């Protein structure tokens, strides 16, 4: 039996974190699975930490705000130190559905892939939340850039719903970009020669709170990610 850890980065998620945690616990009971959970509280200013401690949710309180990359990496470090076989990245805002966790860890259990990305755009007929038009255009551009940098087509480039095996956990624990982690690590992982797969998932719209990517930051985001991926194209990985 593979040990699975679900990493939930949370920054000011007091409205969603308890529901997210409960959905996983209910799922564990219903399907007799054994997914462990760790919430990484990224120095939230609201009651995220309090809610976690009151409800016995396993949580690591970062003593200062690190941003999404640093928070997620803490989760990978925890997974690495605690010797987990599979780590699943899962948003604390209610966008991700625990019912798909088995779909994204299956390719790893069956040794078909080492990094699996939950993708909104593979199954074209599938319904569910697919982001705004401008966001989709951005994701498409990044998709082309990842293809350019790593020679593999990835459709949902900014998906934060993904799973990886022990080797990649160790890799991420050692080094993880503090900014724009999803597209960047995907390209790097492919270049390092790991097997990457996308599986279709449905996502919901955020249940409450505020997304970490604000509209006015999008152009700046695209500029940074594009440059980053361009650099990766010319970087050498062993």
């Amino acid at each position, binding site marked *: 039996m593979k040990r699975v850890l679900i990493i939930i980065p949370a920054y000011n998620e007091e409205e969603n974190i308890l529901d997210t945690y409960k959905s996983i616990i209910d799922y564990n009971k219903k399907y007799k699975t054994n997914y462990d959970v760790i919430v990484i509280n990224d120095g939230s200013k609201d009651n995220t930490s309090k809610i976690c401690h009151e409800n016995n949710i396993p949580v*690591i309180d970062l003593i200062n705000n690190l941003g999404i990359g640093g928070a997620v990496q803490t989760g990978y470090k*925890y997974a690495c130190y605690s010797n987990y076989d599979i780590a699943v990245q899962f948003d604390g805002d209610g966008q991700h559905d625990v019912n798909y966790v088995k779909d994204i860890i299956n390719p790893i259990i069956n040794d078909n892939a080492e990094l699996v990305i939950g993708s909104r755009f593979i199954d074209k007929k599938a319904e569910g939340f697919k982001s705004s038009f401008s966001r989709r255009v951005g994701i498409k551009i990044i998709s082309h850039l990842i293809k350019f940098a790593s020679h593999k087509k990835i459709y949902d480039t900014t998906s934060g719903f993904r799973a990886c095996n022990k080797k990649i956990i160790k890799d991420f624990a050692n080094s993880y970009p503090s900014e724009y982690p999803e597209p960047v690590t995907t390209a790097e992982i492919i270049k390092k020669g790991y097997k990457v797969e996308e599986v279709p998932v449905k996502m919901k719209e955020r249940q409450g709170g505020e997304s970490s990517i604000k509209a006015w930051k999008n152009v700046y985001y695209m500029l940074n990610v594009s440059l980053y991926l361009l650099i990766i194209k010319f970087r050498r990985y062993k």
Partner: protein
Amino acid sequence: MSKSLIITLVVVSICLIIITSHYLKKDRIPIKYSLLWYLFSLLILVVALFPGLFTIISKTLGFEAMSNMVIGIIIGLLLLLTMALTIMIAGQKKKTILLIQELSLLKSEVKEKNK
């Protein structure tokens, strides 16, 4: 170069040397960065004391006036210094992130054990 400009440059140079030495004595700048500042001060001093030398160089390099070249050199050095500082800050940030992560992990582990 006018006499008053020479005096200004000499004064600036000496001030820089005094400031650098002051912070060095108080152990506020590391030796390797103080060297850079001494080099700056010396450069300004040399320009002030041997303007003829620099007039020739600036003419050869195509500057219209020697003072332009001096300013150009200083801007170039400052850009280099800023670049070095950017790299240093990035390194510091990485170390801070590592510290926050490891300390937070440790703290939560201790808390768990004391429950």
